[in-house]
């Protein structure tokens, strides 16, 4: 019965598509209708070191930290081509959790994007966290992401909102040793918007074709969370960052500086 329903839906769609004439002019004739797959490989590091759980990393102010949890939400991935056209990945599927524990042996976490329009792309942009438009949809269009985020501990249980980044571990200073470190930064409803977007230029053009599935290697320097555009010291309260109206925008701005495209593979 259900199959039948889908069959009819498909037929109805096919009928409508075949009736409509799409004679739109497209300059890049070769690429019309072509799509490809793009893989974003997120690679967390601290400065020039690879990120490894439990390793102690120094930061400014003679402080150090080590982490047991490292996750963040990436959304609204879009590519811009050499002619200035933007391809936005479909909204409903355009939200991902980058979790260090999902990394391969090299500590790379893959986000695979299917059916990306074929083009010569020169930059990628994405947001960290959940933007106000997506949040305003409520449950609509969220599909399984609510479960995933909740299971991954990326939603608060005391408020309705997403943690955009989650760092759990310990920190030490000149006088303190292995004190709890928890950075759970996010937006709270409409009263606090910590969503930020970043645009990264590709070092060379990313060619998406039917038969070309490029990979984009993105480095994320976790040190920038605390030593980004603003220095955030644990002794000043940045050991516990949750929804504080003053602290969280600073962490959000810092995170926005941590990404860079290291290289791309066209194959």
């Amino acid at each position, binding site marked *: *019965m259900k199959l039948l329903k889908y069959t009819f839906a498909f037929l*109805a769609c096919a009928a409508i598509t075949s009736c409509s004439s799409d004679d739109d002019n497209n300059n890049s004739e070769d690429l019309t209708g072509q799509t490809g797959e793009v893989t974003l490989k997120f690679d967390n590091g601290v400065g020039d070191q690879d990120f490894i759980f439990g390793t102690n990393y120094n930061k400014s102010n003679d402080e150090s930290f080590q982490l047991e949890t490292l996750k963040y939400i990436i959304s609204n991935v879009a590519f811009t081509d050499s002619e200035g056209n933007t391809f936005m990945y479909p909204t409903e599927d355009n939200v991902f959790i980058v979790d260090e524990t999902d990394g391969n042996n090299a500590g790379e976490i893959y986000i695979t994007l299917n059916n990306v329009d074929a083009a010569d792309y020169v930059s990628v942009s994405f947001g960290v966290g959940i933007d106000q438009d997506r949040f305003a949809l*409520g449950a*609509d*269009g969220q*599909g399984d992401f609510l479960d995933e985020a*909740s299971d991954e501990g990326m939603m608060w*249980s005391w408020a309705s*909102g997403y943690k955009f980044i989650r760092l759990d571990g310990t920190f030490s200073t000149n006088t303190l040793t292995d004190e709890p470190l928890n950075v759970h930064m996010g937006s709270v*409803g409409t009263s606090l918007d910590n969503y930020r977007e970043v645009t990264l230029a590709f070092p060379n053009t990313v060619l998406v074709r039917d038969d070309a599935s490029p990979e984009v290697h993105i480095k994320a320097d976790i040190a920038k969370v605390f030593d980004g555009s603003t220095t955030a010291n644990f002794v000043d309260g940045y050991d516990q960052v949750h929804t504080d109206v003053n602290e969280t925008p600073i962490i959000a701005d810092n995170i926005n500086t941590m990404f860079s495209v290291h290289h791309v593979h066209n194959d």
Partner: protein
Amino acid sequence: MKRELLFLFVCLLVLSCSKDSETEVYVPVLIQVEWPENFPEMAYNLDNNPLTEAGFELGKDLFYEGKLSSNGAIACAFCHEQAYAFTHHGHNLSHGVNGGVGFRNAQPIQNMAYQTSFMWNGSASHLDLQPIIPITSEIEMGETLSNIIQKLSADSEYQEKFERAFEDGEVSTENMLKALSQFMVMMVSSNSKYDKYVRQEDNVILSTIELDGLNTFQQKCTSCHATDLFTDQTFRNNGLPVNPLLNDTGRYEILEDPNDLYKFKVPSLRNVAVSGPYMHDGRFATLEVVLDFYDAGAVDNGNVDPSLLRGDNTYGITLNDYEKESVIAFLKTLTDNEFLEDERFAEY
């Protein structure tokens, strides 16, 4: 709209072709939510979640469903009983799974579609996402979203109900939350004696003492309990002495902004006579005690709402005995028995 039409067309096709209609299909029967003429505009965006009969019924089933909790016993309705405007009668603080006791008094569920934020500290700003808080709270329902979906997916009745209620027919968190919202959006309380009086329906009139109470209320209470929702939806510190056992800082929790210390959302007063105990921690059992507090019990806890400052530099709302009596008589006219007994929202 086009898509919906197409879909209806496809559904009709399917229906006309098929002989064995054992499996349920999505046939959206749209239902209207009330917008009483004395209410402000609706905050909930129905475009993202159109109300349907099957969606509403599913939402109701879920509201009364123990499977939404880890021990199978704590449904939403456990703390939200219809006869008490969907509050937890007799509990100043609610309890949940594993003997957990919460920190705040369960709030009524009524006129949710008109609210811009939820929970005493406004920690939820979208109705769809609000249920995630009690569901995943360890002291309330102690469950995970994915586990609930697993439990519901294994239940053939729920499979059918989801198929009837949603186009994609899936037992998913998205659809579960949408169904719960559909149920709650429909829960409009707008037929109290007061409503009929202001809308001039059925020749309803208020008694002298009720009118005196309304008059006092308008002079002394409506700067916060504004509009016919009886809340301006802001967060305010009303000068309650801080309970050191709970040390509940209210909205301060959200943004850790000192200006938010001890602020709680101004509650609606609809059905207030049946929804006690009162205040965020349920410390007051009667409306008399509430008004005595406003008259003479508020303390300067450092951040009290300036509107409560009196000429003698104390905080509160001066009320004589008759004013208290009449305000309570007026508040009782906000009881909406049609809502409290509405079978559409009842478990059985």
